[in-house]
């Protein structure tokens, strides 16, 4: 359990945000922690699950971000998967 500050954005928003997560959080949880700052606040709320992309790769929803190799202030982009 360790605090992991990320630089993150949510698709449709304007800025890169500081989002604090735990390295034991799954990608799904991290996606929700990013979405809460944007979806329904500055970008429309979506219906699908939130995905997280890191260095071009979409992280599996259940993968813990600490195990996915994310380092402090790494950039991730979250978005609604509305397929």
């Amino acid at each position: 359990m360790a605090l992991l500050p990320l630089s993150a954005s949510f698709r449709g928003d304007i800025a890169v945000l500081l989002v604090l997560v735990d390295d034991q959080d799954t990608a799904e949880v991290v996606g929700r922690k990013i979405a809460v700052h944007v979806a329904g606040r500055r970008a429309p709320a979506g219906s699908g699950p939130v995905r997280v992309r890191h260095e071009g790769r979409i992280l599996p929803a259940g993968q813990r971000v600490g195990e996915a190799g994310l380092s402090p202030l790494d950039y991730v982009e979250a978005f609604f998967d509305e397929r």
Partner: protein
Amino acid sequence: MNRWDERRGREAIMPKLSRSDWYDLSRDTNWTFRYVTEEAAFPEELSGSHRIPSEGWLRWDEPYKISYREYVHNQVTKDTTTYSLKNAVGRSKLFDQLDPGWKSVILAHYGAITMPEFLASIGEARMARFGRAAAWRNTATFGALDEMRHGQIQAFFPYGLLDKEPRADWALKAFHTDNWVVLAVRHLFDDMFLANDAVSMALQLTFTFETGFTNLQFLGMAADAMDVGDLEFGALISSIQTDEARHSQQGEPTIKVLIENGHKKWGQFLIDHMFWRSWRAFAVLTGLSMDYYTPLESRRMSFKEFIEDWVIKQFAEQFHDFGLDRPWYWEEFIRELSWYHHAIHLGVWTYRPTVWWNPDAGASAAERAWLEEKYPGWNDTFGRNWDVIQDNLRKGEVAATFPETLPLMCNLCQIPIVRPAGVTAGALDSPAPLRHTYEGRTYLFCSEPCKWIFTSRPERFAGHKSLIDRLLGGDITPPDLGGVLRYMGLSEAEQGRDATGYDWAR
């Protein structure tokens, strides 16, 4: 004393020389050093002039000439007029009647600009001491006096507003805080003049920033002030602009000397560096003022049109006149004109408690129509963000319009990184911040030019900590938004609110 003329029975009048007969002689008070070396008298760290031998500097010649007597006469006239107008207006209810967005323009201006004007007197004084040409030192002396006047007058005018708007106090207070806007402005001006040598300053402060940007912006601002009925601010800005027009001309002869002596590349580097930084500062301060805060009926042109007409056409033409090239990032700069300040505006409005003025959303139906006309596609990009905000306000969910975390700050310009908006606007391929690791520390940047400025001289910038570095490093306690607001020096009464009480959203 004049001698007595016996024949006429009165004092003889000595013939007056015209200024051109004595100006050069009195101005060029150079001498040959015998007790110290020229390098010791003009240390390179402060002078930046030793690329060029002493004789090369003799050709430095300012285009606009003035004597001390003329200078004092002009300044007294300006001060008398401006202070008289202030005294008259101060007794009226003019300020109370101003548009709330315009009040934000002047509050933002006083907080961000008053102290830098005063600090610029240190920069001008450095040129007045360490400029290698006597003519240059003479001109810079007037510049130092100018900037002292600008610091004083822009502290005194907001002082007169305190009983109507206590946050006018930020004209003095701002630079004694670590507010995020101040961190950005301070970083810029430390780079531009407080921590700069005389030659770099002539190119970066007087040529790039003043000739390229502020001189023109002050003209526009003075006209806008008159249009909205703010006679006091209009007179103030006009009186400053006429000084700027004179002392900003130190850049032109300096760059001519550099080019004549084969150092065009160095001049180009300094200008490229500061043109980008000036653009960033202008997008934040002037972009928001022109396109969102100035009342719709008083807007003459959009911020983009202003930059195109004044900066691109007029200033950039000077690049060609001097045989300089446009900055290498020109295409990126042009693309940013259509999106960057819109993103910053949305951010500043969202983070309104973190600024000392009341951001005007400027997103009513009529204002949106104007924005769409000036920036085709605005409704499909930024308009969608404002739609969500407006829906929340209409539902009474005001809390949803406030932030719960901070944006990442660029480690060069110290302004929030808004690359995702650039992707939405079709101007950028990736929303990810740019990264660079130097001596084990990773730095994040908002743009290629900001990264280039940093990596060109990392030792110049590496020690600085952004607001986010300070938060994560434990400098801000508690590390939440309340702690951040206290760190920024903002009491609840000072924090910005929507300028119109959300009228625009109804």
